[in-house]
Each structure stands twice: as structure tokens, then as C-alpha cells.
């Protein structure tokens, strides 16, 4: 029952987040904005269309979006949603698999981009992996800090029950949330790291790689991007709301938290300017430093 609910949330709700983000951004700009369900309409439109393939591409290009979405869905199976819905496929050590599934998804997208043979897409791929390589230490240091605090290596046990967060690890958890939020923004190519709406050649990062995908392939790309935002958001939300409650209350709390997360992302996108390209690594290093400091504090509390 809980596994079914988990699966339903994982499959159906992610496209809602970009809708909320866009509504918030529109509100900041004084517009009404597209419907919250816009991404569902877009996906439905795209899957009914045919796909166009360049003669330069091979099966790698066609496999890219599918592998990305598959990797992200499996990663979603490892992650608990809130405190009430444990990951259906959770096992000890799944945090490492989770991080590498995100990496595998990105790898497939990058390969597909390179497979087109376009130098422009190659440039985007190069930028994407550069920033991802810097975001990964921050993610792993955050995971290590959490693992130390909870004494476990599984997302489900790490994020379930009454978390010891706010009394003994308070500032450390605040820093972890900050670091993971930055990682979530960077991994999902949101402002201030990358603008998902821009199509200016000089500054595009993630969007460059998916220019050649069309129809159902592009639908998979968009769907995968929304799942990624949802998964990283789910970790941040659970850390920010470390309460223990009954299962329905947990689910309600989690969904409300995700909506607030999307609103915060929207507010960040509306109020921050995009960073200059050479400033991005610095901010990602700062996120890693945040996570490292949090780990140091947790280490002292756990052993001392």
C-alpha cells in the first residue's frame, strides 16, 4: 500500500513542480503565467508527435533520454518521501547507488549530446560535466554528514522517524540543507547556475545538450528533469521538516513541503541574477565547504 502510494507520487507528481516554479516566476514578473499543469499538457503533446533523427546519430542518441529517465526512476525508488513513505527498494548503502544513478542519468544525456556530432552540443556537455563534477563532492559530503549523524547508510533509515536534528545538530543540519539546496539548484540547471529558459548560445549549459531531441525523446528529457528536481527537493524537504508523525500526516506534510520548496525555487529564480560562468565553480565549492563544515560539527558531536 505504502509502496504503491510512493510509486504513484514518484511517477505522477514531479511535472507539477516546474509548473509551480513558473507560476511563482510569472507572479513576480506581474503576469498570470501558464497553468500549473502546463508540463503535463506539454508532455502529452510531445509523446503523440513523431521524432526526427539526424542521420549522424546512432542508437546511443535514441537510448539517451530513456536511460536518463530509467536511472532517475530507480533512484526515486531508493529515496523515502517524507518520513512516512520508505523507499520501496531501500537497502543498506543505497545512498551511494543513488548518487551514481544521478551520475548515470547525466552520463546518458551527455553521450546522446556528443553523439549528434555537433560542436555546440559538445560544448554544452563539457560545461554540464564540469559543474556536475563540482556539485558531486558537495552531495557526497552532505550524505556523509547525514550518515554520521544517523549512523546508517540508507536514505530510508537516515530520513525516517524522529530525526535528532534540531537540538544537538541544529547549525550543522542548517548548513546541510543549504548545501543540498545549492546542489539541487545546480543539478537541475536552475538560476543562479543556469537558466532553464534561456536559449542564448553563449550562456546555455544544460539546454544545449537537448536541442536535437524531439517528440517523445524530448518528453522524456523534460520528465526526467522534473523527476530530478523532485528527488533532490524531497531530501531537502525532509531535512527541513524532521518531525515524526502518523503516516497520512507525513504524506500531507511532505506534499506541502514540496510545494513550498517549488515556491522557494521560484522566488530564488525571480530575485537572483544568473552567476557569471566563472563564478559558478566558486559557489559550488562553497556548497562543498558548507557540507564539510557540517560534517566536522557532526563528527565532534557524535564522538565527543
Amino acid at each position, binding site marked *: 500500500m505504502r509502496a504503491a502510494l510512493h510509486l504513484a507520487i514518484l511517477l505522477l507528481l514531479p511535472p507539477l513542480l516546474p509548473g509551480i516554479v513558473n507560476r511563482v516566476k510569472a507572479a513576480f514578473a506581474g503576469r498570470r503565467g501558464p497553468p500549473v499543469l502546463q508540463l503535463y499538457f506539454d508532455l502529452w503533446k510531445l509523446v503523440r508527435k513523431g521524432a526526427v533523427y539526424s542521420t549522424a546519430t546512432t542508437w546511443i542518441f535514441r537510448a539517451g533520454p530513456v536511460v536518463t529517465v530509467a536511472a532517475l526512476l530507480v533512484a526515486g525508488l531508493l529515496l523515502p518521501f517524507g518520513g512516512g513513505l520508505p523507499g520501496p527498494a531501500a537497502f543498506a548503502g543505497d545512498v551511494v547507488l543513488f548518487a551514481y544513478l544521478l551520475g548515470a542519468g547525466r552520463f546518458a544525456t551527455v553521450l546522446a549530446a556528443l553523439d549528434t556530432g555537433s560542436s555546440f552540443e559538445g560544448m554544452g556537455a563539457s560545461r554540464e560535466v564540469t559543474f556536475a563534477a563540482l556539485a558531486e563532492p558537495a552531495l557526497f559530503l552532505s550524505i556523509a554528514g547525514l550518515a554520521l549523524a544517523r549512523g546508517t547508510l540508507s536514505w530510508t533509515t537516515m530520513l525516517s522517524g524522529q530525526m535528532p536534528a534540531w*537540538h544537538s545538530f*541544529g*547549525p550543522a543540519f542548517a548548513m546541510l540543507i543549504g548545501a543540498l539546496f545549492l546542489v539541487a539548484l545546480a543539478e537541475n540547471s536552475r538560476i543562479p547556475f543556469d537558466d532553464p529558459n534561456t536559449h542564448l548560445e553563449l550562456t546555455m549549459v544544460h539546454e544545449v545538450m537537448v536541442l536535437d531531441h524531439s517528440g517523445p525523446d524530448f518528453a522524456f528529457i523534460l520528465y526526467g528533469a522534473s523527476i530530478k528536481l523532485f528527488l533532490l527537493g524531497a531530501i531537502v524537504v525532509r531535512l527541513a521538516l524532521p518531525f515524526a508523525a502518523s503516516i497520512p500526516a507525513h504524506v500531507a506534510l511532505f506534499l506541502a513541503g514540496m510545494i513550498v520548496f517549488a515556491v522557494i525555487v521560484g522566488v530564488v529564480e525571480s530575485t537572483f541574477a544568473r552567476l557569471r560562468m566563472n563564478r559558478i565553480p566558486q559557489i559550488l565549492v562553497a556548497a562543498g*565547504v558548507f557540507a564539510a563544515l557540517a560534517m566536522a560539527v557532526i563528527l565532534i558531536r557524535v564522538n565527543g
Partner: protein
Amino acid sequence: MTNVALDIALILALLLGVTSLGTSRIGAAIRYFWMQAAAVAMVPLLIETRSGGLSVHAWVLFAATMVLKVWGVPYFLNRSVREASVRTEVEPLIGFGVSLMLGAGLVGLSFALARQLPLPQRPASDLLIPVAFSLLMIGLLLIVSRSKAVTQVVGYLVMENGIFLFGLLLIDVFPYLIELGVLLDLFVAVFVMGIVIFHINRAFDHIDSHQLDTLKD
């Protein structure tokens, strides 16, 4: 039971110290310094709140730090920045990203070091000594890795904040000594550095200390 407010003040001081390693603007570095000083100024009050009543000494330390470090020193530094018209640290010896990473390493080292240290009495918070060490090291790193005299002064002041935190360890035993040390030390340091900066500026029209290495007669 740990004191959450004390933890937050200490971590804030540490974060602001690390952040000041990553900024290229001298004005921002000064701002990070006075915010850090404000966080550090809260610490004696928070330590005393934890152990019961607030003594006069804690208030004196708090007020003196606020007036000197949060208002006085930044005012003075900002003036010398304005007079020398140097706004950014153009060529640091160690890049900003690298100094951030080095800073994180030094903080880790401080946390490891602090656990080895035999202390006369249990500190008010298990973060007090690590953070004090970290600020010392971050300050030193700022001093050795930056080329502008003002940023080096900021590095010294960050170090001074660390020494202040270290001194708080003994606040119950020697309150007067700590007060005296804190105030005198800072006063002399800023005085001397102010004179030095002013004279570099007057004599050479800039405050890049590396130009001093290449003096010829």
C-alpha cells in the same frame, strides 16, 4: 545539553570567516568581518546565560567588542579603502576558489587539533575551541595569501576574533585579564596597521604590500 544559540553564533562566525576567503571585494571582506565580530561579541553573553546570571564582565566585553570591532574598526578600514581607492583584491597569491578549499582543509585540521588539546576546564561549548582555532588559521591564510594591505589587516582581525574566542575559555577565572587583553591587543594592532597603511599610501600611492619587496636604494 548543548546551547543552540551559542552554537549558531559560533557557526555563523566560522561561516563568515570562510566566506571572507572567497570574496574579491575588499568592502565585502570588511562587511563579513564586522558581521563576524558581532557574532563573536554575542558569545560571552551566551556562555554566561548558560551558566546562570549575566555578569558585568560579559556586558563590558560585549559592549567593547561591539563598539570597537563592529563599529570602529570597519569605519576606519572603509575610510582607508576610500582614501587609497582600492576596491578589489586583484591579484591574490592564492586564487579564491583554492583558498576556499584550503580554508575548509584548515577548518578540518582545527577540528582535529582541538580534540587533542588538554584544556584546564571544560569549554562552554564543544565548538568553541575548534571555531577559535579555525578563525586563527583562516586569518593567517588571509594574511599570507592576499596582496592588499587592507585585506591583510582584515585577516589579522579575523585572527584576533579567534584569539578572543580562545580567551573566553578563561572568562570565569580571569575576567579582567581577558578584557584587558582583548581591548589592548586590538587597539594597538589597529593603530599600528592604520599608521602603516596610511604611510604606504602616502609614500607610494597604493597599498599593494608586494611593491615593498622590490624597493631599491
